[in-house]
């Protein structure tokens, strides 16, 4: 599936910002065609690959400005992964006891997704003894989908995963952090995936510009298949409707636009995402 993705981020500052430094993670995996347009225009853009393998773009703005707009436009081809045979994956205890080097760093706590006894307890309902790891992970995804309510007012970027667990509500970011924390509580490697989800307009209605949103899900490692994605918000295994931008231990490793400013006081933030399928 070929998509064009347009991701616009706009900051309006209450007072002028005199100097700002930013880093962006807006280049999807599997594309060479991301165009990043920044206003005001920075003197230079630098780019490097981070420790997790994501493309990072950095720049600074040295002239006073009251608004910054970043538009990233990408064309990206999503090939659906072969559907994993969940029941054929190894027992989760085997995976726990033999974590491969490439997955090892995702076992440990990160700031936003750390192991807790209550998460282990919740997860163990799915992770019964010797159950295949992917089958158990799929079941955990379903349970989070069923036990938790999607509620965009229930959380913000910094909501701790313990709160999500207690209140039983949140958004995609919270559910992903929760599923990762559950897996890590059992000693299993799990990572956070940020990206976009193709949405379909209601039947008979046209697509609305900017109506799509950034999305997040999680990924579980199994020795035979490598990383397998699970989307607890939609209770599914992502196929060709999910476009991956970046992965890391949690949201902190992949936040799309991050900056440090001099001045600015308060700001308002507007984000608009369009995911347009190019194949008919």
């Amino acid at each position, binding site marked *: 599936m070929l998509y064009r993705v347009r991701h616009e981020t706009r900051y309006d500052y209450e007072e002028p910002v005199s*100097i700002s430094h930013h880093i962006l993670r807006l280049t999807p995996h599997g594309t060479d065609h991301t165009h990043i347009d920044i206003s005001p225009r920075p*003197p230079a853009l630098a780019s490097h690959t*981070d420790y997790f393998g994501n493309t990072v773009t950095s720049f600074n703005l040295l002239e006073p400005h009251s608004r910054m707009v970043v538009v990233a436009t990408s064309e990206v081809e999503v090939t659906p992964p072969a559907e994993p045979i969940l029941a054929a994956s190894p027992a989760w205890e085997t995976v726990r006891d033999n974590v491969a080097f490439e997955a090892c760093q995702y076992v440990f706590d990160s700031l936003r997704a750390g192991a807790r006894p209550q998460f282990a307890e919740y997860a163990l309902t799915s992770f019964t003894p010797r159950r295949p790891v992917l089958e158990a992970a799929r079941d955990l995804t379903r349970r989070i989908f069923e036990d938790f309510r999607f509620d965009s007012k229930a959380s913000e970027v910094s909501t701790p995963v313990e709160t999500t667990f207690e209140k039983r509500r949140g958004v995609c970011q919270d559910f992903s952090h929760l599923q990762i924390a559950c897996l890590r509580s059992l000693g299993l490697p799990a990572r956070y995936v940020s990206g976009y989800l193709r949405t379909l307009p209601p039947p008979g209605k046209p697509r609305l510009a900017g109506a799509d949103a950034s999305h997040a899900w999680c990924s579980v490692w199994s020795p035979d298949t490598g990383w397998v994605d699970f989307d607890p918000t939609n209770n599914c295994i992502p196929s060709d409707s999910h476009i991956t931008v970046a992965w890391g231990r949690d949201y902190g490793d992949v936040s799309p636009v991050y900056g*440090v*400013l001099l001045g*600015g006081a308060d700001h308002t933030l507007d984000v608009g995402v369009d995911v347009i399928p190019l194949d008919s």
Partner: protein
Amino acid sequence: MAFRADTRDAVLPGGVYQPAPGVWDEMSFASGVLRPHWQGFVSGLSDLGTEELGRRWKTARQRIHENGVTYNVYGDPLGMDRPWNLDAIPLLIPPDEWATIEAGVIQRATLLNQILADVYGPQQLLRSGVLPASLVFGNSSFWRPCHNLKVAGDTYLHMLAVDLTRSVDGQWWVLADRTQAPSGAGYALENRIVLAETFSDLFRESNVQRLASFFRAFRDQLIALAPSRRANPRVVLLTPGPLNETYFEHSYLARYLGFTLAQGADLTVRDARVFLKTLEGLKPVDVILRRVDDGFCDPIELRSDSFLGVAGLVEAVRAGNVAVANALGSGLVETPAIMPFLPGLSERLLGERLKLPSVATWWCGQPAALNYVRENLNYLVIKPSFRSSRMEPVFGGELSAAQRDLLINRIEQRPYDYTGQELVSLSAAPVWSENSLSPRRVVLRVFLAASGNSWVVMPGGLARVSPSIDTPVVSMQRGGGSKDTWVLSDRPVDNFSLQVSRDLPVPLNRGVNSDLPSRAVDFLFWLGRYSERCEHLARMLRCMLGRLTRDSATVGSSEWDSLLAFHGCLETLNSRLVSDDPQGRLELAPLDLAEDFGQELLSLIFEEQRHDSLHGNLNRASISAAQVRDRLSSDMLRVVSQLNGLARTDNESAWGYLPTGDAISVLNRCIGTLASLRGIELENITRGPGWHFLSLGRRIERSVLLVRLFRSIIVPITPHTWPMLEMLLDVADSAMTYRSRYFTHLQAAPVLDLLMNDELNPRSLAFQINDLSAHCRFLSNSQAGAEWPFAKQHRLEEAAAKLFDADVATLCQPGRRVQLDDLLAALDAALPAFSDALTNTYFSHAELERAT
């Protein structure tokens, strides 16, 4: 076992030394006989005698205090700027033993550096499992953004410190490695200077290896790191600032090595290059010697909650435009959990046996080690494996059964977060305390600097001693002391000193220190303003205290009401006066009112928490001075180090009972000290931009204070409050001049003429404005003058000119004082406006950056 120094008549100072049983004593054998390498020193000490040693040491301690050598203790309200605790007796190490230590720590430095190079590079050690991957990935000191960063010559460690101790059998063991920003080398240097001065004769005779060549090698190494090929690369020492425990050392080393001391806010990254924000604009920085921990160095790519670093620093390193020493990420190998793996890593990476063993250590991330720790908890100290944990070390033997179970449970939950270490019985060394020698536990911190492809070891080090022989832990944070370390030589010693280099011709340079960070100038400016404010306050208070006890100052008299009105001029917001409390006034008898007023004056001097007190303002002056201490001469430092102690009584809480005479003495001393500060400023500072801003701060402050006094005394004056004129003359230190001109005819117009218009009176407003203009002229014509706020300066000068042009006699006529007040008001507004404009132009970009 007790002993006397030797069989001849020499007696140890203080008499008998009692080594602790069952501990290796650095000075004496268990038999009580001196170890051979101590005999010369002890006999020299004996020749001095107890009394002379005591006398010399008293002088030495005085000098430590005057030099402002301090160590800040966190979480202790009295802990800021705690005087450095140095012991009179050095730790002596013989040449052969030093050679063993030297070889051991060099091997260790090489090894730790190679481990860093692998973990932040190809990660072969992790892939092959020689170093457990979880030791790195579970470690919050592994900074992923630092992976594959450019590091010249793969040298991650440019200075590192190794803490050593010895067990009962005399074997040296490594207790800890300090690899990211080790502290102590500067203190070791200062210790050496004090001891070499105090025992100059003994020091000369003892053939002690010198420290200077170590620092020369370190400086050369840092300069050579500069990525650019500029002739004079700029090296800055990045400090977290005066609140850091070892800030004294940062400013001391910056001065000694000739680098600019900078805080994060002094630096900025533009287009992946680091610059120092100076008064004259941005200056490129080539090398950063950092005393800021890894995670705090860059809020963009490292810890986003840090205000100590420089946004974009990692990107600048990645682009190869700046070198950071030690390399970012170096803190990784500080973890004690790595110690069990060092012997194997040494064999693998160096093909050598580990020469200097670490204290036996078990990392619970390994099942066998976890088992051992569980079984042997009583004999171990349990430490957090990684720095992020706030856990303090726990001594297994001190736990109750319940606490034990709880700890084991916690360890089993997250085994890799815990490390067990054998409790070592630290060796002991003699300290001079209460006029005798007694043993204390000792830990020796040894320093290494990278030099080309190898290492140089500082021949000496920072020895730290426990507060008592029974304390098993040595820590400066917990009230321990320090010692100089004398590494003895059997050859003549190298006499090189970094402070005087006689051989090299130095190119002549008239440029006044051009690397003046804007922030430093900001603090110089405020040092000027605060010290002026303090002097003003001290004079006001002295004047009131002196009059309060006069017979004529009875409640309701003209003198009394003038005092109250004069107190009102202080515009104090936190007045303790009952009379300022509308409900309280009528209930107090006259005697109580006077008492109440006296208490208010004492509170204005001594109460530290009061924003408007002398004590509070002295603290602010002192804090401003601390921020620029690397730029003050040692004479000036000696004076500013007295500032925050000036308004203190011997018994901190009892100031309310102080007799008036004593309070006046305190104020006299304060005025005297402030005057000597002013004297040093006038006579001993080069007339660079820093000095001009300092003086400008003083002139602006004194002008503001004078204008306000005129407005609140002269404008509303009535015959009843006439005594205020005399007080005004007193405060402006112009009573003598007035008397010589007008005898005792006290009138508003001549007073105002003397204090406002007389350009020859250095206390007059006219004098302040003239001098202010002169400083402005210099600064606006200098390289720093490109954005000088001329408009605000001119508005100020115009307001002043209008005031001085008006006829004083007319202005002072009772009906015309509204006009006087209008003229003063214009100046009263123009002065702060000019001060703000200076701040906006020169200092505001020093404000903190913040994350979104």
